[in-house]
């Protein structure tokens, strides 16, 4: 057999994961700017929730979460203090859900197939949108926190606390985004992709975010105590109030983020490699 002359295609320039991921991140952010509907929706929902819970339920609920507080204006203020951390995490999880839709849109249009036939780092195709979602989650948290402060919420965090909070938000957004990317890829249609992650919306409610878990019936309480968002919300609460971090709660928070990231990444990766007819 003679030598293969046309085989002299350029040698495969080793994978450039960082450059590829940045290119994909840029694409994702451009898409978010061009199609602001999805992004503003993920910010609007927690804003509406915050207003609803403070101004409609807050007067009564506040007395339930803070003993000794009288219903009415004092109750609203107490309830605002109590739920702000949960609303922030609701915003983070909501932002993560939007990446399921964009992943599914890419998979059902031809563009993900195009990426798969190119010599680019596989992790970048999904990692770019994930990082873009982290950016969007941070923006959503700033908006919601700004509104809470306008309503009278007064966090008491130092510089270290704020930095730690930003890091925590990024970590949680990263973890849930990988999970949602996988959910988006596993969906057969964009409609399903937008529905499946909705179950995550329930998590902030089934935890310590809106009412103390001690007030729940046994089964729900058991779930609320052990589900991932409870330690995450409690860590957020501690960071915002400048309270000392509880070691086991902090470790649980970091552990859950690592586990969710790992599972989401592995699931997304195997779905990306799956043959798609």
């Amino acid at each position: 057999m003679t030598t293969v002359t046309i085989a002299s295609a350029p040698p495969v320039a080793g994978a450039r994961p960082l450059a590829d991921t940045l290119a994909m991140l840029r694409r994702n952010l451009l898409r978010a700017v061009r199609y602001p509907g999805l992004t503003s929706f993920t910010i609007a929902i927690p804003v509406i929730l915050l207003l609803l819970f403070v101004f409609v339920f807050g007067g009564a609920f506040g007395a339930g979460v803070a003993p000794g507080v009288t219903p009415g204006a004092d109750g609203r203020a107490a309830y605002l203090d109590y739920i702000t951390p949960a609303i922030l995490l609701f915003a983070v999880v909501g932002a993560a859900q939007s990446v399921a839709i964009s992943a599914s849109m890419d998979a059902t249009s031809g563009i993900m197939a195009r990426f798969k036939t190119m010599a680019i780092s596989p992790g970048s195709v999904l990692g770019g949108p994930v990082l873009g979602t982290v950016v969007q989650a941070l923006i959503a948290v700033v908006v919601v926190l700004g509104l809470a402060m306008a309503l009278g919420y007064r966090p008491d965090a130092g510089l270290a606390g704020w930095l730690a909070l930003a890091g925590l938000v990024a970590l949680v957004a990263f973890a849930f985004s990988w999970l949602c990317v996988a959910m988006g890829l596993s969906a057969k249609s964009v409609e399903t992709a937008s529905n499946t992650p909705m179950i995550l919306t329930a998590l902030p409610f089934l935890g310590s975010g809106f009412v103390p878990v001690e007030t729940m019936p046994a089964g729900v309480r058991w779930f609320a105590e052990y589900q991932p968002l409870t330690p995450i919300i409690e860590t957020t609460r501690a960071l915002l109030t400048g309270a000392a971090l509880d070691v086991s709660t902090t470790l649980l928070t970091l552990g859950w983020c690592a586990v969710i990231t790992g599972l989401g990444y592995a699931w997304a990766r195997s779905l990306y490699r799956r043959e798609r007819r």
Partner: protein
Amino acid sequence: MTSDLAIDVRGLRKSFGDQTVLDGVDLAVRAGSITALLGPNGAGKTTIVGLLSTLLKIDAGTARVAGHDVVAQPEAVRAAIGVTGQTSAVDDLLTGLENLRLMASLHHLGRRPGRERADALLAQFGLTDAARKPVSTWSGGMRRKLDLAMTLVGNPAVVFLDEPTTGLDPRSRRTLWDEVRALAAAGTTILLTTQYLEEADRLADRVAVLDGGRIAAGGPPAELKSAHDAGSLDDVFLRLTEPSAELPAETAPKEMA
């Protein structure tokens, strides 16, 4: 003999579940030539493109593209090919320019050369005027051209075009044909699938008719016509593929999406 083969496929088999789509396909495409893959709906044309472009996994047989084994060296194959599939592979929310620059970044062309490449391709396909508008506002023909332009950003040695002109008006179709001819003249190898026999007749150096999971006939269009004593490729096609073309749609194997 094998030295100038850009695509060398032997005994290629592929099933989806219990449905055999390809049952021993042999295909040889010379470097710098245009080969058209014909066949009835569901014959497996898109499956062949999927297998050769590393999107699908080969069940049996060997396939070399641009000198690289598709199974053993998929990364090398990906670095050498460009694929324009049936489903639009452009980002609707970005502008044409942004789509091309994204491709340039992913090919690591560098900032300036990447921008020059994007501008050159826009000019080549007559898309410069619309370049800064979101692709969602473009016509089908323009999107198809952009799709092909994006495929060409990395100067691929082998280009796969899956029904590149489906849904295009005659003028856009001709523009695309001209681009494909120019590509081949510049040394690029092209494997295209098509439903339009006229397209195969006018464009391709060689035609391969896929039927029943195998290549039923292959050769230059003129040779095929005289061998089958047919006036047009239409007649060749009907003669070779009649039995399965008569199958009702439900029982014909489903074409890969």
